[in-house]
């Protein structure tokens, strides 16, 4: 799960047209960097999700780094993003999405422009 950092500032300072241009460009960057067969979605606002079947944590980190590098080149305005990673396990896709959301929240809290990993939904539950 990926969320653009301080996106609201772009809309507020440069206008909604500029904001939309950033979102559209980020969408294209995502599509270009994910593997064939992976799914990338925009959940609304500046929040995006990539589902990469069969990819391990190392692969996922590499993918995010690749997206980060491409985005530095492609971004029409300087905007960073935070990412939260979580594995899809037998407990299903929805718990994985919630876990990725928690990882993303951690990345935001730790200063943004970084990637955090939630190893599993169950471990998180145990920690609480």
């Amino acid at each position, binding site marked *: 799960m990926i969320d653009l950092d301080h996106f609201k500032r772009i809309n507020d300072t440069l206008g909604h047209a500029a904001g*939309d241009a950033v*979102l*559209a460009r*980020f*969408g*294209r960057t*995502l*599509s270009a960097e994910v593997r064939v067969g992976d*799914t*990338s*979605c*925009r*959940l*609304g606002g500046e929040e*995006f*999700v990539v*589902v990469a*079947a069969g990819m391990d944590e190392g692969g996922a980190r590499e993918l995010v780094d690749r997206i980060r590098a491409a985005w530095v080149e492609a971004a029409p305005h300087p905007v960073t993003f935070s990412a939260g990673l979580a594995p*899809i*396990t*037998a*407990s*299903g*896709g*929805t718990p*994985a*999405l919630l876990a990725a959301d928690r990882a993303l929240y951690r990345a935001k809290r730790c200063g943004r422009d970084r990637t955090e990993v939630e190893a599993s939904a169950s471990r998180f539950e145990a920690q609480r």
Partner: protein
Amino acid sequence: MLQTGRGPQIGVTSRPTLTPVSELHIIDTGKSVPVKVYTPQPVNHWGFLTKHASALLLIANEPRTRLRDIAASLDVTERTAYGLVADLTEAGYLVKSKDGRRNRYSIQEHLPLRDPIVHERTIGEVLDLLGGDRSAQRVALIAGKVQDALQNEPSRATLLLVDDDPHVLLALQMLLGDDGYRILTAMSALEGFDLLALHEVQVILCDERMPDMTGTDFLARVKEMHPDALRILLSSGADGEALIASINRGEVYRYYTKPWDAAELRNNLREAFRHYWNLQDAHTEWRTATTVVEAAVAADRRSGTAGPLRSAAPGTEPAVTPVRSDNAVLAATSPQARPGGPPPASVEPSMVSDTVASALRALLRIRSAKAAADLLQLTAEKLGATVVPAADADEDALPIDLSLGEGPPLLAVVEPLSPARMELEHILPRLVEDARHAVDLLRQTERLDDESNHDKLTGLGNRRVLERVLARAGEASSS
């Protein structure tokens, strides 16, 4: 002598038991209000309608005075059309007003056995035929001719008899003449083909030994051209191997050995017609529903609007209790379904058509090709088959793949020469075709969902796409 093809010798009107009083004449002036109807006496006894499929509805555009004359000669009483319609409806007939005009009616079908009596003729035509002679006998004769001319009704229960022996044909006609079928007779296979080309036939009763072609060969060719018709063979009892081979190829639905048991043959033919209509109704319902889905797909494609397709097509919701999975639909409506268990010993036609109907309804609710394949296999098992991988099947397996391409081919194995076998031979090919159609529709609606579920700004999927992908990914990682 006995004639074949179209003509007054063919069909119910040629039977000698018909008396003028068993005719129903509804004579509608089309001008005066209220509409008057003329019926035989006594009018409060409608049993004759169910007994004789020879009622006539004559729609007229003639002056009342002439109608009164005819009514007098017919020995009928005058009453209102609405009263008559009410009585007919109560007797089980479906009575429809013509083109929304309240003074024109047609009796469309008799619900218990479907002896549709769609009889319309202008009174002018009938009067021309009557000429000056209005005796009861003359009227009955003309009524018979009009009825003959009207007998090319496609929904009419039609039986084709094929036998080179005219005595057998006559005996069968006498036996079955009161059962309300339109009976076509052919004295050779060639003549049988001609009649099949001209008429819609639901049940075929055919002799095995004929000079130009054996009955089994005839029915084998009929199967190619009219797969839905129920094909019944009359065997002399000495046709052993050819008959068994034919049954095993699914060309014969039932067979009887001469001399036949009259009561049994009559009952079974009645049963065969009912079975045919029940299956036909299930498929008609299915076609109607799929047409609605197709229309909805087309409309969505044009408008480009998003939204779950099935809720946009209310007609596709089958009249079954909503349940969670496709298989549960079938299980809920089929308490005897025991996948993998021993097949039922005998197969009741009503159970068969119920099973097919519920399978078709469930097909409308499938969410994956795998679910459609599972449903097919469960249905085959419910109808008495054991479903095995093609690799493990012996030569008794039906040569119809039930896997729908989801995994290795699966065949239905069912005891040779059993009633269950004959039912499955008849039903499975069409059911597999319908299942393929259902999968095709599912793919179309999914594609449409994909098209309409994309974020306009970025071109990426939206939340709905994500939910579906996540659900699939969850399934994949749990298996």
